[in-house]
């Protein structure tokens, strides 16, 4: 089985979806082949193959997201690209007031089966306006589904799940891992709303998603040498998140750490932590710990950026905090 990068996983998912279903459309800045097939090459070859179903757009995120909303209402399955997550700030109205609410407000008469692909993440020196993770905002908007894969196989399978899902999905690709390769089995599928236990363990559960899962696995490996057994739950879908799998895991380990790239405060980890406490108050041996980035603007200077980010050290420290109590 050949290994492919996360970007290639996206490209394959789009290609297969477009081949399978003529209602799938792709548009965004620079996505067509004359413009390079996407800044990451994630849409390379598609416009050549599918013609006007793949279109480069002006720099007009409201128009991009709006066109996706409208086309979806009319029965298409548009996959719109908002190049970086910070740019959804100019398209929030379309996503929040329209994509998310249209099914409900129409009493079920119109659905919005769109996918918005976007990319973000710190660690590449892109500074304050090109690195933020705002998935917590979107998870707080009823009607949206939010997906953040951590590897190529999931990126491919989950993107297809989003495209063929009947609800509006926000699909977040982490910049840093787009060139990381992974095996993608041909028949691999990943349904929305289902977490994956990436590593089994008995002493503490890490609940996270996206790029930091790689760090969680590394820390788990390291601590295994000390006899600390860490279970890693990769949520994959942030909303709706797989409470069943998480509660099952934490019921077993009795300790949990939440983990994501976004800043800790008011982040997704807060919801997960709250729910775990609500459900497993009597079971927990220690308060759930939260790991994420620091409550500050993403800094440019390399040492500052490293200090800002979650890290394996911070994950390890959080795990040890949960283990302090017997």
């Amino acid at each position: 089985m050949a290994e492919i990068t996360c970007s290639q996983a996206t490209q394959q998912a789009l290609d297969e979806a477009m081949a399978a279903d003529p209602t799938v459309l792709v548009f965004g800045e620079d996505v067509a082949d004359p413009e390079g097939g996407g800044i990451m090459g994630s849409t390379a070859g598609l416009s050549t193959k599918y013609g006007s179903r793949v279109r480069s757009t002006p720099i007009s995120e409201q128009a991009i997201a709006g066109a996706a909303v409208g086309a979806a209402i009319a029965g298409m399955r548009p996959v719109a690209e908002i190049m970086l997550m910070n740019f959804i700030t100019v398209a929030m109205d379309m996503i929040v007031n329209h994509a998310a609410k249209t099914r409900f407000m129409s009493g079920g008469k119109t659905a919005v089966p769109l996918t918005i692909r976007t990319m973000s993440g710190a660690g590449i020196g892109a500074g304050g306006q090109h690195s933020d993770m705002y998935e917590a905002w979107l998870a707080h908007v009823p009607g949206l589904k939010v997906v953040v894969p951590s590897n190529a196989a999931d990126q491919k399978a989950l993107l297809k799940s989003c495209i063929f899902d009947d609800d509006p999905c926000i699909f977040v690709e982490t910049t840093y891992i787009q060139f990381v390769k992974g095996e993608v089995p041909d028949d691999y599928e990943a349904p929305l709303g289902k977490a994956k236990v990436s590593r089994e363990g008995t002493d503490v559960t890490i609940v996270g998603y996206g790029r930091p899962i790689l760090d969680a696995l590394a820390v788990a490996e390291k601590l295994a040498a000390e006899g600390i057994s860490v279970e890693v739950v990769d949520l994959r879908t942030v909303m709706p998140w797989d409470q069943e799998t998480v509660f099952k895991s934490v019921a077993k380990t009795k300790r949990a750490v939440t983990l994501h790239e976004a800043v800790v405060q008011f982040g997704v980890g807060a919801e997960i932590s709250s729910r775990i406490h609500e459900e497993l108050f009597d079971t927990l041996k220690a308060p759930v710990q939260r790991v994420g980035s620091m409550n500050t603007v993403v800094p440019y200077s390399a040492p500052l950026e490293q200090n800002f980010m979650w890290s394996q050290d911070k994950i390890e420290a959080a795990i040890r905090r949960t283990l302090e109590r017997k």
Partner: protein
Amino acid sequence: MTRPNAAAGPEDLIKIYRTSTLIKQTDEAIRGLLRRGRLQANYYSPRGQEIVAAAMAATLQPDDYVVTIYRGLHDHLAKGVPLKALMAEYFGKVDGSCKGKGGCMHITHPEAGVMVTTGIVGSGMPIANGLALASQERKDGRVTVTNFGDGATNIGSFHESMNLASLWKLPVVFLCQNNLFAEHTATELCTAGNIVDRAKGYAMPGILVDGNDPEAMYAAARQAVDRARDGEGPTLIEARTFRFEGHNYGDPSSYIPKEMMAEAKANDPVPKLRALLIERGIATEDEVAKIDADAAAEIAEAVTFAQESPYPDVAENLSDVYATVLENA
């Protein structure tokens, strides 16, 4: 380029009148209900703008798409949203167009081609492009009309949408219903230059028309709709009109000069069209009276229907959020 057959014939004018009187009377009925406390709703009256919607709709096919705004009653009725479903939605009842969940600012009725009614100024336009994009890809021959006010021409989504529609030659008509005010602000205080001139910046044709003149409005609409249907791309229509009842129900309209209001009301376009039909011998007094009476009867029936319709079950709060009800949400 003016196309042949762009002129409204007698049948068109009768149709426009039928639609207009239905709108006018429905609006009066709704305001009556509000006044008597029989209905609670944030209501944005289209009184005075009936002809714009009626003439536009007269140029459309049943399956053409319409997108409109909170001030949309006229557009909804003109495009054929059934009065009962509309009225029940105003009352928040289960037989409403959207089961009472969307409400009067968010009427959706795909069977009539009314795809989106938005409460966010300017937001209908990007979505209209998407509907038109679907039509373009499917080659289904549909035209999408997106309605918005003069105030909406100053928001970013207008600009982005005009540009994209022009570039992609989307089959969409941008219908600006310029009623001279955006909430309490006069157009010239918030809009630099002329709205219709903005079309040029997008290499798009722009048409300035008296929206209250049914024949002029029909001709403008026809031209834009035909152009869109023929694959030649979008048109901006600036239809000058006026709203008689202020921004929302209860607005004392103190910011509107008295003479301006008086003059507008003296030129109420609905009775004017009525008179024109008779004067030109297109219809007799009896015939128009019957049209008026039919509308009144339909409205009375719809109001009763809406009032008697039950409220939706509170379980509706959990359905239609997602395609299937989420387990843990």
